[in-house]
């Protein structure tokens, strides 16, 4: 299928892009209990249970309590899962109910559509992160050693997952295909990325497997921002994350440009 020859610059309206972004934000904000409060509660339960069971038995970094080690991982896991859920569920719902037609009929370019969906996913990820921090601040005293890294990995991680959600939403034709994507790809990759442990505690084989997953670098780099300690140098993690973002963005933009499963 040939890519559309869209003259993107001509007639560009920032307000059009902002409207789609605002609509996507309103979509999750209107059901905030489900889209923000519920994942915050889930993260809180993880923290309570794991810290209760492992606090006295596990120490990953010297001088860092297990609960403090766990918390950034849980925040990042929540950010990633919710960023994916936002764009994927919005798009599949719009496709199945048919209201995607209003976006497709509009003069928005495929780049604006991409940017609005991904940015909305990032904002949901940030809202969940803020919520998790707010309710768990009592449990751990985090040092915030390098806030710039925290922000960079949170933004890039949620952008990657928002883009993956967009790809899944474009590809899927049924809700259960999204659920399968979530259960068989997103969930295992986030769980195996060192959220609950340091991958250095794994056998060699699983360490190698973990290092193949970009999710590991997102979590490890994010955690570096809190403690100034990580399994991999943060610059390496950032490079992997940036390359991953570029790769998934290229795929998503290509799908949108060709109208794959959107413009028939």
């Amino acid at each position, binding site marked *: 299928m040939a890519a559309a*020859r869209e003259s993107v610059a001509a*007639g560009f309206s920032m307000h059009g892009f902002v409207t789609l972004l605002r*609509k996507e934000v309103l*979509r999750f904000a209107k059901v905030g209990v489900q889209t923000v409060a519920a994942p915050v509660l889930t993260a809180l339960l993880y923290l309570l249970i794991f810290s209760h069971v492992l606090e006295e038995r596990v120490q990953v970094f010297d001088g860092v309590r297990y609960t403090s080690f766990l918390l950034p991982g849980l925040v990042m896991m929540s950010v990633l899962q919710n960023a994916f859920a936002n764009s994927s569920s919005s798009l599949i719902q719009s496709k199945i*109910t048919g209201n995607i037609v*209003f976006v497709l009929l*509009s003069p*928005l370019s495929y780049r604006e559509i991409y940017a609005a969906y991904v940015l909305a996913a990032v904002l949901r990820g940030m809202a969940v992160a803020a919520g998790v921090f707010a309710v768990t601040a009592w449990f751990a005293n985090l040092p915030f050693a390098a806030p710039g890294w925290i922000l960079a990995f949170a933004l890039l991680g949620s952008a990657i997952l928002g883009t993956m959600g967009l790809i899944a939403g474009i590809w899927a034709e049924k809700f259960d295909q999204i659920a399968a994507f979530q259960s068989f790809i997103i969930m295992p990759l986030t769980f195996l990325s060192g959220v609950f442990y340091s991958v250095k505690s794994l056998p060699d084989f699983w360490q190698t497997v973990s290092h193949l997953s970009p999710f590991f670098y997102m979590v490890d780099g994010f955690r570096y921002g809190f403690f100034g300690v990580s399994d991999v140098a943060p610059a390496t993690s950032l490079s992997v994350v940036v390359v991953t973002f570029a790769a998934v963005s290229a795929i998503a933009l290509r799908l949108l440009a060709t109208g794959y499963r959107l413009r028939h």
Partner: protein
Amino acid sequence: MTPAIEVRCVAKRYGDFEALRGVSLSIGRGEFFGLLGPNGAGKTTLISIVAGLARASSGEVAVMGHDVVREFRAARRALGVVPQELVFDPFFTVRETLRISSGYYGIRGNDDWIDEILANLDLSSKADVNMRALSGGMKRRVLVAQALVHRPPVIVLDEPTAGVDVELRQALWQFVRRLNRDGHTIVLTTHYLEEAQELCDRIAMLKQGTVVALDRTQSLLRRFAGGRLQLRFSGAPLPAVLEPLRLPDVAPAADDDGVATRDPSTGVRVSLRVDEYAGVESMLAALREAGCRIEELELAHADLEDVFVRIMRETR
């Protein structure tokens, strides 16, 4: 003057299936244009290509002189589409929906025009009601409103009255007629041929992805001058000499009480094509000679439904 819509040699293939086979047509500014055809003829595919919802396999389409691919922004700003399906976003109220639609087209502060559309479509009282809470007819009106928020010069209505009650249909046509009088180009697809006959200046008929008729509505009706002799008779079957003139039943034959008629006691109901009114006398003579007793007789002028049936049959 640049036409409102220009379609040049547009083909659309889905694998081996050819939905459109080199369709060309031009719709002038200010026209009320009808796009007719049986199910699967390619009407919605053609409209989808004009609206940018589908991409032509070959050929070109322009809206108000703007190519729908190369100058997609200008083409889409010039076009308002009322989709066939009753689609809506369940998260928003009617007003929010219309503000969002306006925003997509880069329009801010559009509330005055939104209020005017709402008033014209009798939706003012529903402005702050969630879309989910609206009846089907109300949702259909919101779809029309969404197509109009950016004041497009060209409006495409894809089966807008499917499943709509008579009152809304009348109100909708009154509003659309006014838009047309105000200079908007209207493109309509419908299965209600009487609506097309009443509203459209010009009509294209599609069949299996090909334009099989394209003319002014009155010219199409004149082309098949004459009419239809509707009969109920008993006593003998229709003579063989009249069989070639027999028209297919457009609606199931029924008597005044709505009871299907093939009952010998009430007679047989048939419609015969009348090419020239002078031929009616010989048709009646043939019936008499065959021993048929005419119970009812009505001479009807050709309408768009007759024209449609004949064109579809003749282009097999």
